[in-house]
């Protein structure tokens, strides 16, 4: 059957190791890809592409990165916005001042962020849990401070670098559709890579460390190596996300965008979306970035006669209420809902 394993015969090893063993998942993914690559760019307006989809994709990527670290490897980080900032600034400097080609600059931003992340990941070898969270908080403050005060980086008194026009091999990327494709391609590439990463040896090591680090060490998982790799990969994703959102959306690297609040926001995304799932990062990013806009727009139309300050504040109230609601109904995140549905389908129509 297309929605359960029953009848899906795995004849080869390759089929046994497929990412999505159930046809429903494969088709679902295919439909989503067609939707993202073909339907949305041709039907959505520029407004939707440039101000809804772009930030949604970029934050999804950042949340995915954080999910590797926090969801899979179990290391809490509240300094991820700072790693995004490192990515943003370094890719703009690489591209704008040194003329490095755009794709290399974007990934270069990720590499610089990953270096910063690895350095701040070193304390994780000795401290855990809340204490580690506090040390990543230090990363947030230190990086923010450095980027504000290091004049060479921030480019003068305004502490801001403007994003230059983007060219790939002489081809200008200026319209929302082109920017959309740029972000989508990077996102797809990194998601496929990430999904395979967490399915492989590395992901299993991380899960083992998350579930019980002493046991993991006893069975031969090197904590030193795996924790640092988790920090490196995770901040690489954050750096790429930071550089993409700066190039395509903010158009200027300004340290104020990457503040502590954004770090909490990212953590909120993976908690609501689902820790330790790739899908959850997308759900969470959608929830945290798109829902407030949706609520705001809805309230605008149904509460036209209400004073505007009450209207503005009710957005925060409704949004906060929804967060509480979702966490009560499904503490494991929205990705878990999909999981539950799939499990129910396996038994349907004869549940026990």
């Amino acid at each position, binding site marked *: 059957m297309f929605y359960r394993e029953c009848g899906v015969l795995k004849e080869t090893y390759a089929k046994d190791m497929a990412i999505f063993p159930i046809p429903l998942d494969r088709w679902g993914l295919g439909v989503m890809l067609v939707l993202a690559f073909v339907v949305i760019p041709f039907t959505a307006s*520029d*407004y939707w592409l*440039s*101000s*809804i989809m772009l*930030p949604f994709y970029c934050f999804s990527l950042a949340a995915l990165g954080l999910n590797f670290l926090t969801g899979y490897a179990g290391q809490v980080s509240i300094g991820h916005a700072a790693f995004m900032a490192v990515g943003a600034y370094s890719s703009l400097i690489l591209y*704008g001042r040194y003329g490095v080609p755009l794709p290399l600059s974007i990934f270069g931003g990720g590499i610089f962020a990953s270096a910063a992340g690895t350095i701040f990941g070193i304390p994780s070898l000795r401290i855990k849990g809340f204490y580690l969270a506090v040390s990543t908080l230090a990363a947030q*403050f230190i990086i923010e*401070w450095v980027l*504000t005060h290091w004049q060479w980086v*921030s*480019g*003068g*008194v*305004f*502490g*801001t670098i*403007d*994003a*230059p026009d983007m060219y790939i091999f002489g081809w200008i990327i200026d319209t929302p559709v082109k920017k959309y494709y740029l972000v989508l391609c990077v996102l797809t590439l990194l998601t496929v890579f990430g999904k395979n990463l967490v399915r492989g040896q590395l992901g299993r090591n991380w899960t083992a460390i998350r579930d019980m680090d002493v046991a993991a060490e006893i069975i031969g998982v090197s904590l030193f190596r795996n924790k640092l790799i988790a920090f490196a990969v995770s901040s690489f994703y954050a750096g790429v996300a930071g550089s993409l959102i700066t190039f395509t*959306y*903010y*158009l*200027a690297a*300004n*340290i*104020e*965008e990457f*503040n502590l609040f954004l770090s909490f926001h990212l953590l909120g995304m993976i908690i609501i979306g689902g820790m330790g799932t790739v899908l959850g990062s997308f759900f969470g990013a959608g929830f945290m*970035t798109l829902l*407030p*806009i949706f609520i*705001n*727009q*809805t309230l605008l*139309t*149904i509460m*036209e006669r209400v*004073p*505007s*300050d009450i209207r*503005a*504040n009710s*957005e*925060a109230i409704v949004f906060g209420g929804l967060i509480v*609601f979702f966490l009560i*109904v*499904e503490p494991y995140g929205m990705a878990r*809902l999909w999981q539950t549905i799939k499990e129910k389908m396996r038994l349907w129509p004869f549940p026990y």
Partner: protein
Amino acid sequence: MGRKLIFGFFAIVLAVSFVFISGQAMAAEKKKAGPTQFFGILIYRTGPFAAGGSGIGSGWEDFMELRNMQGGVNGIKYSWEECETAYNTARGVECYERLKDKMVLVHPLSTGITYALIPRGTKEHKVVVSSGYGRADASDGCVFPWVFTTPTNYWSQNSAKIKFIGKQMGGMDKLKGLKIANLYIDIPYGQETKPMLDALGKKFGFTVRHFPVPWPGIDQKAQWLDIVRRYKADWVINRNWGVSCTVPLKEAARLGFPGNRILGVWWCGSEEDVLPAGPAAKGYYTANWHGVGRNFPLIQEIIDKVYGKMKGHISFTRVGTVYWNRGVYTAVINEEAMRTAHKKFGVKVLTGDEMRWGMENLNITAERIKEIGLEGFMAPIKTSCENHEGGKTVLFQQWDGNKWVKVDEIAPMTDFVWKRIKASAAKYAKEKGITPRDCSKVD
């Protein structure tokens, strides 16, 4: 239980989206009455800076409400839509993208959003007005044709502040040997004036030391001990924002530093900033660029006609406060630009290019200000192709314990400031590959 809740939730979402879509259709039908000049209002009624955003937005809307009651600007009525940014750049850009098809002029009302909108506005021909915030070098119209800092910017303000301090001490020569502490919030906004003050210090022979306050600046005890006990400052420049504006007043009072030796930035000079400090705020000076209070004919008219008919956009107690008045000022600048453009292009709904021409050829004389009903509220403004700043004076006000009182009007050191604006803008142009336009060839 869980399942019911989830399905219930989805049902609500569906119902709400239905209402949303049909509501939009209804709203679209309603708006067919006559051509209007549309303004998208990016404000923040929520978040840590709500006092500023709600005041400015409401003052602006109240003014437009009044004009619509009187039949519009030369017969063209206003229409507007509010968009809540919560001072968040991502949300602000979303607002701009949503409303950009209808609007021709935008006030970003946040440093971050200004940075994000400068390239967009320049490309899409929308006028970006950052009154008293954003980049100071955007006053150079040759490099930033689409950006206006009318009436004044941070650098001009600081040169005026130094002149004000000199005047208070009894002459510019008294500045020599003076110790000035620049207390700033440690984000790019706070740092912007550091080189300016250093240069002024060299010129007039006073010492400046910079005291950073980490964001969000609720605790400033260490900095104040440093300023008062170790540095022994004569004057303190308070360059904070939002909640961090009030803290210095309390700290100064605790350490016995006189309130009338603290001089605030114009974003630290509203009722909301001083009232929480209580009596400690008495004597505190701040810069400003418009009058305070309700004693102006135009504001009386708004109270009478708009609030009299219960059409105001904010609680009546805030009418006449600093931020609300700033909103009225904003609206007046917009309207004068519209009127200027109407004279050249005819009375109609303006496009971005026409609005830009209007902003660039503003000439609000003292007579015109009197005609609007704002005598003493604002100083004359004259912009040009090169000068996108336009204002020639910075106002200073003092908190007397109950209300703000205007104490002085001081012209900034224009030559000194403009030399730096030009240099900084030229650097920006070089980095971005912009060829500055030649203003002698523009009519």
